[in-house]
Structures are given as C-alpha cells and as structure tokens.
C-alpha cells in the first residue's frame, strides 16, 4: 500500500456550524464539528474512520465531498483542490467521488423505480443512452447481488440489505475512484452486514476503489480497513495501519475504545477501561488536549497546550503529549496510569513500576494479529486460539455490555469470515 499513489489528501479540513441567536441572527459561537483533520487515502486502499457518536465522522465524510460546504482546509483529489472548484467543474468531478449512506430507508427516492434511481446518473452524465442504460443498470444490479428483473420495482418493495445494495449500485454507476461509506452497514442486521462488507471488499478488488469507511463498529472497521483514523471531538487522535493500531494503540482514547470490544469468550475477562464523564460539547471544547477531561494519563501541559501530531513510529501518527518529545513526561506514575503500555515507548525513561508485566501480556497476544483485546490478564492470553478470529465491538458507547446482540453478531461475523 505504501507505494500506491495518494488519491485523496485532506489537509486541515474544518467544518464549523455557526450558532445564531437574537433578532439579527448574531453569531454567538460555533459548533466545531470537524476541527482541522488531515489524512490521505491511497489508491485501492480503505481508510477507516472511527469514533464515538457526535465526534464529527459523518460531517467529515460529507464535507470532504462538499455535501456540506467546509469552513476551511483543502481536499486534494489527484492534486486538485476540490474545495476551490466552480459548480460546473465540481459537477463533473463528482463522477469520481461517491457516497453510500447509513440509512437505506431514506437514501433512495421513494417515488422512483430502481431503474431510474441507478440509471439517472448514467444518462445525466451521458455515460450511455437509450437501451444501453437499462443493460448497464441490470449489470450493476447483478454485480451487487440483486436480480436484474428488479429494475421496475420501487424502493419500498425491498428489505434494508437489498436497499443498501441498490445504494451501492447507484454509487458504482459512474465508475468512481473513491467512495465514502458513511456508516454503510451500521443500520443493517449483522448477517446482512457481513454480506455487504464482503461485497464492498470484492468490489474494491474489481473496480480498484478506495474507501473512506466511516463506522463506529470496531470489528467491522478492522475487517475492512488498511489504515484507521480514530476521531475524538472533531480531531483525529490517532492514525495508523490497521494491525498496528489494534496491536499497539498509543493514544489513551484509542486504548479505551479498543478495550470496549466485547469478548465472546466468557472465561477471558478483559480489563475494560471505563472513561469517566461525557463527551465535552463541541461548542465549547476543552482547552489544551480535547481529551484531557477524560484521560486517565492526563498531566500538566494537557490542560493548556494543544497537542501536536507526532509520529513515534513511521506511519503511526498520534496527537498526544505523551509521545511528543517536547512534553513527554518522565514521571513513571503517568505512564503507569495509561491503561495499556505502548510496545515501544518513545521517550520513557526511569523506573517503570509494574508496567513491564502488562506489556509482556499484550505482546503475547499481539503476534496473532487479529486479536484486538485491549488489556488482558497474562494467564488468560495464553489460550487465544479458540476465538482468535472472532471479535465484535460496540464502541459506540464505552460501556457496551456483551449482550445477546453482540454475541450473535460475533457469530455472524466469524461465519462471514470463514465464507470469505
């Protein structure tokens, strides 16, 4: 993946929603939904974007397609800044940038047949004319696993999964390079989720697509992504290769998030990190590091100085003072408070207390690659084989209980993987 050319580069993208009040609509503040995010998507790559509800994932996805007009920043598609384009130029460029939506029930026009939903873009952009359009639509339907004879039907005649396939076919109709999957599988039930994810992965191979895969389901993201960006309150907290992020999460928030993945094995009791408090309001984000109000390893500069993005290991970016050589604390107590010790701490010196034991434990689990257990007891990590390929996550809330739903979904997910 590293040799692949950069397809889409996002630089310092911001989207602030103004809050207006009073008789003359004075602007009294703004909701900083997306506040300066930067990442890049390479050709034929999937970048996952995860985070809690309300952290700005969807806003980020939509503003980089200019469905919402961003406040500031640059989005370079093959070197061109799409935010500076005029309407006509933008309209023709949209053929290359598509989106798949979360809710399959509101993403299809209820008054149009499947043929016109998918075919409209083909005729509008003059890709084909006349009877050819119908053939193309039938071909697309077949490709996404629907019967070609469905073209005369209306959206309400389909189930959620089928509708999502129609949405995928619509996104594919113009043969794009890049698709934003905005929680594309979150609204589907788990067995259908697995099918749709596998479909997306097959299509990626076939059409050489790049995805920005927005989700809150960590296991899904891990399954499909090459690289993952973790968002917190409008900023990217950590950005790394998928395996690297799951094996060696650096940012305390990422560690907490990963620890919330429910374990299907009841004998293996993961140490779950419960974050205290609520997500602060994006209207009035905390000073300094945005995570400091909930961070277990918060120390002096976190409250006042905004962290920089640093790269402790190549390709692994993290926005945290702990790894910034300028601020990195020497106090072992702070490192000990970190829920999970990094494998190769950058600037840690001095006494490490009981940290090494835990680090050993997690590195035992690490070679397996797919084991996303956040922090485990050493005795129990000795037998990870039984469930090594199965995880299910519900990191939407940090206190997900492993209820029936997640157990079911874990089974379905593993079934999907064995199918694949």
């Amino acid at each position, binding site marked *: 993946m590293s040799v692949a050319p950069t397809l889409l580069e996002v630089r310092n993208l911001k989207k602030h929603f103004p809050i207006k009040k009073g008789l003359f609509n004075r602007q009294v503040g703004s909701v900083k939904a997306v506040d300066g995010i930067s990442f890049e998507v390479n050709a034929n790559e999937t970048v996952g974007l995860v985070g809690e509800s309300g952290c700005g994932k969807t806003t980020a996805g939509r503003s980089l397609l200019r469905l919402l007009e961003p406040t500031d920043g640059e989005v370079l598609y093959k070197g061109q800044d799409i935010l500076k384009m005029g309407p006509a130029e933008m*309209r*023709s460029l949209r053929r290359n940038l*598509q*989106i798949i939506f979360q809710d399959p029930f509101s993403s299809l026009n*209820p008054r149009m047949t499947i043929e016109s939903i998918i075919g*409209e873009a083909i005729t*509008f*952009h003059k890709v084909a004319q006349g009877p050819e359009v119908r053939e193309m639509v039938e071909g697309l339907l077949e490709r996404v696993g629907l019967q070609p004879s469905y073209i005369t039907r209306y959206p309400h005649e389909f189930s959620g999964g089928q509708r999502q396939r129609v949405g995928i076919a*619509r996104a594919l109709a113009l043969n794009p390079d890049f698709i934003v999957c905005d929680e594309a599988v979150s609204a589907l039930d788990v067995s259908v989720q697995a099918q749709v994810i596998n479909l997306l992965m097959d299509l990626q191979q076939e059409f050489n697509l790049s995805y920005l895969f927005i989700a809150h389901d960590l296991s899904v993201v891990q399954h499909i992504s090459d690289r993952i960006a973790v968002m917190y309150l409008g900023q990217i907290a950590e950005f790394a290769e998928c395996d690297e992020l799951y094996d060696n999460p650096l940012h305390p928030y990422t560690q907490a998030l990963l620890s919330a993945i429910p374990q299907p094995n009841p004998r293996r009791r993961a140490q779950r990190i419960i974050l205290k408090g609520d997500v602060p309001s994006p209207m009035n984000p905390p000073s300094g590091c945005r995570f400091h109000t909930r961070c277990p390893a918060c120390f002096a500069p976190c409250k006042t100085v905004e962290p920089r993005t640093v790269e402790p290991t190549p390709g692994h970016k993290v926005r945290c003072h702990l790894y910034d050589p300028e601020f990195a604390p020497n106090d072992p107590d702070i490192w000990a408070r970190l829920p999970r010790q990094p494998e190769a701490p950058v600037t840690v010196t001095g006494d490490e207390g009981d940290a090494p034991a835990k680090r050993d434990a997690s590195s035992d689990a690490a070679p397996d690659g797919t084991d996303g257990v956040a922090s485990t007891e050493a005795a129990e990590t000795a037998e990870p084989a039984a469930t090594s390929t199965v995880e299910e996550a519900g990191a939407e809330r940090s206190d997900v209980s492993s209820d029936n739903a997640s157990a079911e979904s874990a089974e379905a997910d593993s079934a999907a993987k064995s199918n694949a």
Partner: protein
Amino acid sequence: MTDSQTSSSPPRPEYKTYGQIVWGQFKKYRLSYYSVYGVLALFVIAMVAPVLAMNVPFYMHIPEGVGPYTQLQGTTSFPWFAALFDQNFFDSGVDIFFNFLLFYVPVSLVGWTLMMRFKKDLTDTARSKARLRFIGIASLVGIVLFSVIYLMAFSQPYVDYASLKELEGARLIFPLIEYSYRDVDLMAVSQGPSLEHFLGTDRQGRDVFTRLIYGTRISLTIGVVAVSIYTAIGLVLGSLAGFFGGRVDNIILRMIEIMMCFPVLFLILTLAGFIEEPSIFHIMLIIGLTGWTGIARLVRGEFLRLRNQDFVQAAIALGFTRARIIFRHVLPNAVQPVFVSATFGVAGAILIEATLSFLGVGPANAPSWGQILTSGRNTQQMTLILSSGFAIFVTISLLNLIGEGLRDATDPKLRK
C-alpha cells in the same frame, strides 16, 4: 426477462406504487369515495348544461316564406351545434371551454376504450402507465384544439329562436329547458316556481334553474383555477424558500408573514373594489394572489424536511443540477400534503366567490350561485335563496369530504 417471469419463477407478489396505496386507503372511506362520484356528477352537469338548458333548437326547419329571418326561410339546420362555439351567444371563455369538453371528453373516452380493445394483454402497471400517457397526450391535444377554436372567435348574429317556434309550419326541437341563462324576459319578472320555470325567475326575468345549472360551471372553474394559481405560486415560493434557505428563505418568510397580517376576506374585498366591472377571471386572480401563503409554508416545511434526506444528498453527490434535484427528487415527495390542502382550497374558493357575489363585488353578469343568492335576498324569494344555497352547500360538502378522506388516506397513522 418477461419470459423468465412468466414461465420459471413463481408469480411475484404484486407490489403497489404509492398512488395505488393511497387510492386503496381512500376507497375505505366510503363517504369520501362516493363524494368523488358526486363531484364527477357536478362536472358532468357543468359539461352537459347546454343539452339540458339552452334557447337554441337542436333541429330547425322553417318553410319557405315564413318568419322574419329571410336567410333562414326554406332551410333545415342544426343551430345548436354552431351556437355552442358562438362567442356572441356565450360571451365567456369558460362556457366555450365546457362546450368543447362536451365533445372532447366523450371522444377521448371512446378512443381509450378502443385502444384497450386492441391491447388486451397489458399488466396492471403497464395499463396505468399507458393511461397516464394517454391522459397527458389527450389533455395536450385538447388544450391546443381549444385554443384554436377560441382564437378563431367564431360568432354569428343573434336569432330569437323562441319566436320562430310559434310560426306556421316551422319545426324546432329544443333542449329540455328552453331558456338561456342571460336572456332577460320582462314579461316574467320575479315569478315563483311553476311548470314553465321550475325555480321561478329573478328580477330580470331570467330562469333560475338554468342559471343554477350554468352556475356549476362558474363555481367549479373558479374553485379549480383560483386554487391552481395559488398552488403554483405557493409551490414555487415554498420550494425556493425551503431548498435554498438563508436569505431567500428569510425574504419569502417575511412576504408570507406580511400577507398573513391582512384578513383575507377584507384584502380580497379591497382588491375587488379596485376593479370596475369584475369578471370571474378577476375574481379567480384575486383569490389566487391572496391565498398562496398556506401552500407556500406547507411546501417550505416539506422541503426543509426532505432537503437533508439522504436521497437528496445522493443526488447532489451524483452531480445533478439544482433544478433537477428540486423538480425530480424533492418536489414529487413534497406535493402530497399539497393535494389535500388544494382539495379543501377548491371548496374555500367557491365559498369566497359566493361571498363576494353576495356582497355585491362579484362577477356581475355571470350566473354564479352567489349572484342568485343575492338576487334572492333582494327580491325576498325563498326559492332563489334555498336553491343556490343548497347547490353551494352540496358542492362544498362533497369537496370537503374528499379532502378529509384524502388527508386520512395519506396519513399512515390513520391507515385502516
């Protein structure tokens, strides 16, 4: 594809389009459903009014050397048909239009039946599509034909056919009632009901029953046209406000608020006061220009709701033009409550016209129900008041019943 559907695969469950679902629901409201037939009947009455009542004979034969009209002597003619499009006889375009429909609607219906004879093996959806297309083409052709007929401005000199009836040897076959809605008969002023005049005559000696029949045309036209005008204005302004938001929305909302500050009836009365001799077109225009605020707000709300729906976002992401998104994607989903509101609006417009006529600022010469009502008040004749009042009551009730049924049928919470 059709082969595989008919032979191998099991018959697919027949899914309904949205329109079919609403129609199916609507049928369950019996009263509303029958009201549709009631309104259709009113429409038919409006259409066949000249067959029921007109003082021009269907057939006329006048022997040689008889009567005052030398050009008619010794001829056999069918003056009724020519008089239908005679703009000297029917001075209003509304009458010419309904007379035109009297021929055009049956011809279209026959055409449709014949077409269905030839294409029997159509599925339900294909048939409803063909029907839609047929209606579209037929109305287009009809509009063009009517425009041609109307612009030809055919007219012929006035002939007093009633006097010819008395002539020796003349044979004339008249419609059921031998009066016109505008011919003044000073010999029979303010009469009560009789066999000659079923509902009596007004102060100018005009037959009230005839006027009542022709009044159906006026009422239906005023209702439909006035509502079309304000629905069109409301749709455009509401769409603009809802879709673009921001400053456009602000300006349009302020316009709506200013309009809503005035009591509508007094605004209409004031506007009507500026026109010296209001015709029914003036009345339609006035009602149309004052009534759009409700529709505009309704459409704006729908647009605000739909604009953020994912399918509209998808349309933007597919690079469609704004016009296409508004008209193809948002508007078809936003018009449904407008239909309901428009049905009630037709009833309201008819009522407003009756009110205006009653207050003396309505169309002075048209045989509208309000005019009959007010002349009944002037002459203190119960039959005039009761008959026209009953006609207004029936029409308004039918339209309101349809509106209610439609409202309930489109509301998924009230599904039966």
